[in-house]
């Protein structure tokens, strides 16, 4: 049928459009010639060069450290924040949530320069600490976004039942509430980690003293011209993101299944 053919064609074109650039990058990461036109021979040398490149390795180090730290800290703060917000009255809840989503709604360049302004105002030298604080700030709303729905799904009498049986509020929190919302906490942590690894704009404005992350390095390298090491880097990052995404997707669909059964 013509209709089906048109649909197939359109779908193929769109997916081609989406993937062509990435595939080209990956393919040419194995090309021994620097040019993007001619194919020389298959090689892993750019991958090796990649790992020898000090600039890239240093920024990879910072990227991962910042991502792990900001994921951990923002998950902790965000989880407690979500629990607290859940227990607030209507008015408080509205105010806090609306303020909370500002970094999500604002263009990232505005969040970036506002934080930069804050650090100047606080006389904080731009570097590791400022980048970390910025990352935590934009990660927390996403953690809250993951945890809050889980709290709403929870039977609201669980905490009361625990306290009825003798648990102090803190014990109830530890042994009842947190285990119950754990899936949301983990998804939030994964999201925070992924967002942090991928961030450019906010990091760009709020770092200094030689602290960079992968995105910033790619930016400065790309401005100077094309480098095959970046192609190799792209392939590796693509695989990493693919794995992370599969994990998150698996968790969300398992969760939907579980809820469907219950």
């Amino acid at each position, binding site marked *: 049928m013509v209709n089906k053919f048109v649909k197939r064609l359109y779908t193929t074109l769109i997916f081609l459009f989406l993937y062509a650039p990435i595939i080209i990058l990956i393919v040419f990461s194995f090309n021994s010639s620097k040019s*993007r036109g001619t194919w020389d021979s298959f090689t892993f040398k750019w991958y090796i060069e990649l790992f020898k490149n000090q600039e890239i390795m240093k920024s990879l180090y910072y990227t991962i450290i910042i991502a792990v730290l900001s994921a951990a800290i923002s998950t902790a703060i965000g989880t*407690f924040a979500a629990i607290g917000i859940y*227990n607030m009255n209507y008015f408080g809840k509205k105010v806090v949530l609306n303020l*909370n989503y500002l970094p999500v709604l604002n263009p990232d360049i505005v969040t970036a320069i506002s934080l930069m302004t804050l650090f100047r105002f606080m006389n904080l030298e731009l570097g590791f600490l400022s980048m970390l604080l910025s990352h935590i700030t934009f990660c927390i709303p996403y953690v809250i976004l993951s945890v809050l729905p889980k709290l709403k799904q929870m039977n609201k009498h669980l905490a009361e039942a625990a306290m009825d049986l003798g648990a102090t509020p803190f014990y109830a929190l530890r042994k009842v509430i947190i285990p119950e919302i754990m899936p949301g906490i983990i998804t939030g942590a994964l999201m925070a980690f992924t967002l942090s690894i991928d961030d450019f*704009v906010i990091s760009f404005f709020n770092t200094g003293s030689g602290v960079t992350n992968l995105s910033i390095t790619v930016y400065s390298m790309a401005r100077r011209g*094309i480098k095959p090491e970046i192609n190799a880097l*792209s392939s590796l990052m693509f695989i990493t993101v693919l794995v992370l995404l599969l994990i998150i997707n698996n968790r969300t669909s398992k969760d939907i299944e579980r809820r469907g059964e219950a």
Partner: protein
Amino acid sequence: MKLKWISYPYVFWMILFIVIPLMLVLVFSFTTGNLSFTLENFQKFFQPLYLKVLGKSVDLALKSTLACLILGYPIAMIISKESIKKRNAMILLFVLPMWMNFLLRTYAWMTLLGKNGVINFLLTKMGFEPLNLLYNDSAVLMGMIYNFLPFMVLPIYSVLIKIDKSLIEAAEDLGASKLEVFSKVIFPLSLPGVISGITMVFMPALSTFVISRLLGGGQYYLIGNLVEQQFLLAGDWNFGSAISIIMMIFILIAMIITSKFDKDKEGGGLW
């Protein structure tokens, strides 16, 4: 119970890292170096040079949003009509590039469009002249569409799959043709997703500076580049803040307009 106090650390954090910075930007925009109140930062913006930049930014943002809508709606529809397993797989594939590093995705287009890039390579091999594909409006537009298309498709898709099949069947039962079913039932019901998508494309498109810098070149200025320039090169934080405030106002207006359409306030969301 009385557990709400455990959110107070975050409330404090929010005030320190979200509220105060924005206030500072506001203050900066209304002052000069010696902290006296002034409107000159805003007045400075209303010069032809800068207004042109704003105009181009809005123009490109609108064009890319429209392009994403026209290209994205059909694909959202096509995927939503597949079986659950197939469409989950397709949507995952669709979303995957979105999660790839944004810099690298934009950089990938540089390799495609550049003077010695893949497209020009193919063209010369076929005997054509190499084209100047990079460092112009079209390249930036292409970059925007490429980056933001999934943001348009996802919300529309997630609303489309939630449409009750029995509504479509009821319309068909009452005699509506395929086109009428679309225009009278499906499209109106998908509007919240469309609104969501438009919001999620227009705003970043308006405020981007990476796409314009990498694909437009060092002399290409959108409003995002202007802000970057003021803060990092020219050192005029007051002017930069004013521009940011203007940008936020635009975004606020866009949000108000879209929320008028989306009375449900449900939107499409990302998941």
